[in-house]
């Protein structure tokens, strides 16, 4: 072992850096391939609606319906705070009309999509990674392959669609609760006349706002589901890998969400 001839030379810094870069690039390409495969299978799924429709419904149930309460509470609170603060601060500058612009900017355009995405990522993203990771360990994925069931078509696509649909719908509910529900709450503190409020709101709200909000939700849903499933499949053998992978996955999801949010907002303002 200690003879110089037999000692394996330790790879140099450049070699190691090169290997690290190569493996990183390989993972990125692999992930891209994974994502393209998801898109292809999604198109096929939409066309022929196979046995996975129940999985889709379950995914919407878990990701969307069960996250409704927390989303609603968050939206109500946020909207009511904006209304109460806005109605007390803005008239001091004679800019009451800005209340609606602020509500729409905060709830519809910015925080609505990103907060629902964070809720969904932390609830369902980790659940998806954990579930798929455990499936890999239990050889359930191999069982799907052995039964001729494409795991991407059967496992990933319903989650992909389910998370996207849930995200869009939750974002809608976030807007409903944040814009309409919070009006009710603000009645307790600082009443605004119903007609005045909704007229101001719908005059300030543009279709572009709604559209960009929904586009964000679609993109965020795709990110959460694709990254979570991708990491789930990266679990190899041991059940101890599952929590580690889930943590890595959620971190990556958050970073990608924030980057995507910034990019879409940039495009919106350009």
């Amino acid at each position, binding site marked *: 072992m200690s003879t110089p001839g037999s000692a394996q030379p330790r790879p140099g810094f450049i070699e190691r850096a090169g290997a690290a870069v190569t493996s990183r690039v390989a993972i990125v390409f692999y992930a891209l391939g994974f994502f393209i495969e998801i898109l292809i299978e999604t198109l096929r799924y939409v066309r022929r609606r196979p*046995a996975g429709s129940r999985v889709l419904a379950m995914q919407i149930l878990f990701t969307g319906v069960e996250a409704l309460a927390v989303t609603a509470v968050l939206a109500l609170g946020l909207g009511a705070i904006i209304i109460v603060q806005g109605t007390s601060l803005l008239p001091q500058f004679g800019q009451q009309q800005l209340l609606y612009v602020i509500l729409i900017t905060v709830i519809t355009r910015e925080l609505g999509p990103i907060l629902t995405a964070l809720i969904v990522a932390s609830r369902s993203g980790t659940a998806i990674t954990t579930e798929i990771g455990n*499936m890999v360990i239990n050889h359930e994925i191999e*069982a799907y*392959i*052995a*039964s*001729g069931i494409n795991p991407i078509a059967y496992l990933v696509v319903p989650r992909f669609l389910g998370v996207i649909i849930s995200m869009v719908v939750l974002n809608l509910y976030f807007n409903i609760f944040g814009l309409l529900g919070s009006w009710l709450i603000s009645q307790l503190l600082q009443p605004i006349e119903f007609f005045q409020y909704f007229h101001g709101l719908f005059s300030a709200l543009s279709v572009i706002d709604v559209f960009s909000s929904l586009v964000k939700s679609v993109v965020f849903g795709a990110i959460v589901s694709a990254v979570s499933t991708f990491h789930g499949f990266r679990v190899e053998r041991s059940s101890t890998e599952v929590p580690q992978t889930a943590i890595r996955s959620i971190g990556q999801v958050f970073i990608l969400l924030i980057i995507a949010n910034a990019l879409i907002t940039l495009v919106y303002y350009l």
Partner: protein
Amino acid sequence: MSEAKISVQHASFVRDGFTVLDDISIEFPDAATTLILGPSGSGKTTLLKIAAGLFPPDRGKVSYNGIDITATSGANERELRRKLGFAFQDGALWQNMTIFQNLALPLQYHYPRMPADEIRSRIDRLVGAFPIRRHMTLRPAALSAGERKIVSFLRALVLDPQVLLFDEPTSFVDHQAAQRIEALLAGYKRRGTTLIGISHNVELTAQLADYLLVIIAGGVRAFGPLREVASSSDREVQQVLTEVLSDAATFDGDILDLLNNAESD
């Protein structure tokens, strides 16, 4: 030797820098039963899964009737998969589904238009006399290891495959269930189904095996008709046969006698 349906060519598989399979080439005979034997960690299960196309080898290829298994996709892949059944050693049942759903899903997936009644009657027929028929609405977690294995075995058969691959179907299974599985396999063998499996069960080996494949440390050590391999003069092969087929490996008798005894039971 009849025409090979599944053929593995120069397959190598490396995991975490450890060579599990090293350049294995083998042609599994059609309409015959091949049992793979080898000590623990010799790569039996990996070879079986690669042969079934569950994951691709790092090098080499696997073909079914001349078609590269790992290169197919879409409808071709589904067509191919319907012909290959795989029973997992640990069951690998889908935990979030009931036993019935576990058995029904392959049918629903491959035959989306099949009526629910027909799916139910097919599954009833398949489950037949197995006691798990009482547990069809339970989840896999509620079953014993042996019951899960039986379900996995039945799931592999639900699509009526032409090739059945199985990984130790009788371990952890009580004697009665093991006998049922043996009977089931014998039935498929009679119908001309190609069987490829791993088993430590002497009775099963003696009753079913047409060919034996002995692998040691990721390489093929012996492959041929049962008697030919069993009477091999290779000491290592003999040792493997003895150790593997006799659970305790306590006796030092002739492996052929052992197999003959088992056959006459």
